[in-house]
């Protein structure tokens, strides 16, 4: 499990108040998502990539994350130019590459990468615990924050359970094939995981009851907003506003 690969560090970005980071990501995401104007998107992309550099993250790890995301965009780049109607740029046999399709695909790819870069640089550089508490302080409904925490706490337990079952399969010489026996076995594995997690959730709930849980999660963490945080929030808002302005003007 790869958790919090980027959260250790002591740059200005790492030290920002997690509440500010969450708000910033929301701002830039909305601005970029609404924009379909290339110069505006490039401004956003440059700013977000700049943040990654400012956070001095491990370049190899960052690139490998981007590779995963761009795997999806590769499909868009292949399909959209051929399917969206517009003026033809090239003809290759029966296929036509349209100008509108191509711009579409390129804008989407750049937008996606810009948003993803902002997430790595801002959300990735805070620990999950801090982000959860920040959500709580931003008045996100308690149930959602609890879900967030529980997923973080138990995803590794669930993963271990899965690995345990897989080892049990291996020592009895199971190799996955495309036949009924394999599919049935996979179904058993998924079924076991569901059952195990249901049982576990019951036990956890009981453990919470034993410690006086009454439906409300309280925290003892508090954040203090500094000048640097405010300055960053204003900077981020300016970038988001300029993306929107470029969009509106053109």
């Amino acid at each position: 499990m790869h958790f919090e690969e980027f959260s250790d560090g002591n740059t200005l970005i790492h030290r920002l108040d997690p509440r500010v980071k969450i708000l910033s990501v929301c701002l830039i995401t909305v601005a970029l998502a609404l924009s379909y104007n290339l110069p505006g998107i490039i401004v956003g992309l440059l700013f977000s990539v700049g943040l990654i550099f400012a956070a001095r993250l491990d370049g190899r790890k960052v690139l490998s994350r981007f590779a995963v995301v761009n795997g999806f965009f590769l499909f868009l780049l292949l399909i959209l130019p051929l399917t969206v109607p517009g003026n033809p740029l090239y003809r290759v046999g029966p296929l036509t590459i349209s100008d509108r399709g191509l711009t579409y695909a390129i804008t989407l790819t750049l937008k996606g990468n810009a948003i993803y870069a902002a997430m790595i640089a801002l959300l990735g550089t805070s620990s999950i615990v801090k982000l959860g508490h920040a959500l709580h302080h931003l008045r996100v409904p308690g149930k959602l924050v609890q879900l967030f925490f529980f997923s973080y706490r138990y995803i590794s337990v669930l993963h271990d359970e899965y690995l345990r079952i897989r080892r049990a399969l291996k020592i009895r010489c199971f190799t996955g094939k495309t036949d009924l026996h394999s599919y049935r076995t996979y179904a058993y594995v998924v079924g076991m995981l569901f059952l195990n997690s249901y049982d576990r959730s019951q036990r956890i709930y009981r453990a919470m009851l034993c410690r006086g849980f009454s439906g409300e999660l309280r925290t003892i963490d508090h954040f203090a907003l500094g000048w640097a945080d405010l300055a960053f929030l204003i900077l981020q808002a300016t970038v988001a506003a300029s993306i929107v302005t470029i969009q509106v003007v053109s």
Partner: protein
Amino acid sequence: MIEIRDVTFSYHSGVPILRGLNFSLSHGDRVGICGPNGSGKTTMLQVIMGLLRAHEGELRIFGKQRSKEADFFEVRRKIGFLFQDPDDQLFCPTVKDDVAFGPLNLGLEVDEVEKVVDDTLETLGLEPLRERVIYRLSGGEKRLVSLATVMAMRPEAVLLDEPTAGLDEDTTLRLAGVLREHFKTYMIVSHDRAFLESTVDVLYRMEGGKIYRPEYR
């Protein structure tokens, strides 16, 4: 403190797992219970905590009859329960949060909670783990942190379900020392004879849903 009279309980399958169980625990008792798998040891602990409801019989805890969910709020406040699997007990992201969970539910102020957390971790020698993320703790550390979460509620008694399962010798010894030193009243369910001998004054045997007279005193 705890009095169980003629309690029966069965799970959905209908086979009774507690059959006319009688038992009592008083202040200052340090009691161990051993017995084969499926003899109802864990079930009994869960009935005492109100996690399972007895079908018949009488359950008196702190001098009051306990039968409805609301009756057990006081029980859970005053009696701590250590679960078999620490992964069930520890559900917060960090050690500090988990230890603070109980005291916060008891309605303590934030700075009081901080103090309770620090005191508890110090008593158990766990201060270095304060900020640690729970899923990165070892099995032994998880067990000791579980005990800290129970201890932070300042319980009058503690029920422990297989506390030594999966622990190495050193951690087992450490756990026994902590129990002896910091807890006056407890009931331990375990298969670990050596551990029981080093922690309890009376050892009962449970079999077929009943508790028999003490093996030694």
